[in-house]
C-alpha cells in the first residue's frame, strides 16, 4: 500500500517531503515502548506511536523504519521533522488513536510486521 493511501485512510497530514507519499509500505507495528519496538521489529516496517521525542527518530538509525505515524494528534517539533527529512524518513500525524489507526490500516489489508 502506498503511503498516500495511508494518509487518506487516517485523515492524516504528511509532515516531511512530499515525495514520501509514493513510498510503498508493506507492514506496520504499533507501540509506545521503545524496547518493544526494538525487540519486535524483524523487518522494515511502518511505526505507529504516540512518542514524539528525538529518540523516536533515532530509532530509525538502529532498525529499518519505512515511516512513522504519530497518533492522538501528536505533532513532533520542527527539529525532529528536519532530523527525519535528513534520514529520508516519512512522518505523518493523525488525530485518530493508536487503536483506531491500527484497526483502519489492518482492515484495509496492511499486515502486521514479523515479530
Amino acid at each position: 500500500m502506498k503511503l498516500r493511501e495511508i494518509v487518506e485512510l487516517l485523515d492524516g497530514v504528511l509532515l516531511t517531503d512530499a515525495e514520501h507519499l509514493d513510498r510503498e509500505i508493506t507492514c506496520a507495528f504499533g507501540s509506545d515502548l521503545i524496547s518493544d519496538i526494538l525487540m519486535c521489529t524483524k523487518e522494515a516496517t511502518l511505526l505507529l506511536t504516540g512518542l514524539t521525542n528525538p529518540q523516536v527518530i533515532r530509532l530509525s538509525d538502529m532498525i529499518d523504519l519505512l515511516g512513522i505515524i504519530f497518533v492522538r494528534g501528536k505533532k513532533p517539533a520542527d527539529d525532529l521533522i528536519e532530523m527525519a527529512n535528513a534520514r529520508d524518513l516519512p512522518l505523518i500525524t493523525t488525530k485518530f488513536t493508536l487503536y483506531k489507526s491500527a484497526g483502519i490500516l489492518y482492515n484495509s489489508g496492511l499486515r502486521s510486521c514479523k515479530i
Partner: protein
Amino acid sequence: MAVYCNISEDAQQKYEHFTKEKPDPEMSIEYKVGHKDFVNSGKASSEIKLMLKRLGVNPEILRKVAVASYEAEINVTAHSLGGDIICDIYLDCVHIKFIDNGPGIKNLEKALEPGWSTADDLVREMGFGAGLGLPNIKKNADVMHIESAENQSTILQIIIFY
C-alpha cells in the same frame, strides 16, 4: 561487587578462541555519554552501526549490534551520571564497553529481570523504563558481561561476532 556474564551457546567456541588469542583491535573509538542527554543519546550506537555497515557486516548482525548498543547507551543516559563508550572493532567481532560514573546498580539480579525498572517519570514519558533494556541486550549480544555495585561505576561489555 556483583558480576553477571552470559555467553550464547553458539558463541562459546568463538569466545574461548577470542580470549585465548587476545588479538589487537583493528580500530578503537571512544564516545562520551551525557547524564540525561536524550537529544544526543544513541548517536554513538548509530555511528558504530554505520561503521560496521561500511566494513560489510551483514544486516542481521548490524541490527543486533545496533539494538544491544543502543539499549546500553540509553541505560547510561537514563540511569547513570554519564560515562564513556569504548568500541573495539576486530576482524571477526565487535567489543563495546560502557563505563559509567555511577551510582551503580543496587540489585543486579533484579535489574536483569524483564519488567523490573527503576526509571523515573522523565525516562518513562520518553518511552523507556519498560524494564526490557538488559534483557534485550542479553538477547542480542553473543557475550554480555556486567559488573556493578552500589555507589560505584557500572561496566557493561558486549561482544557480537559477525
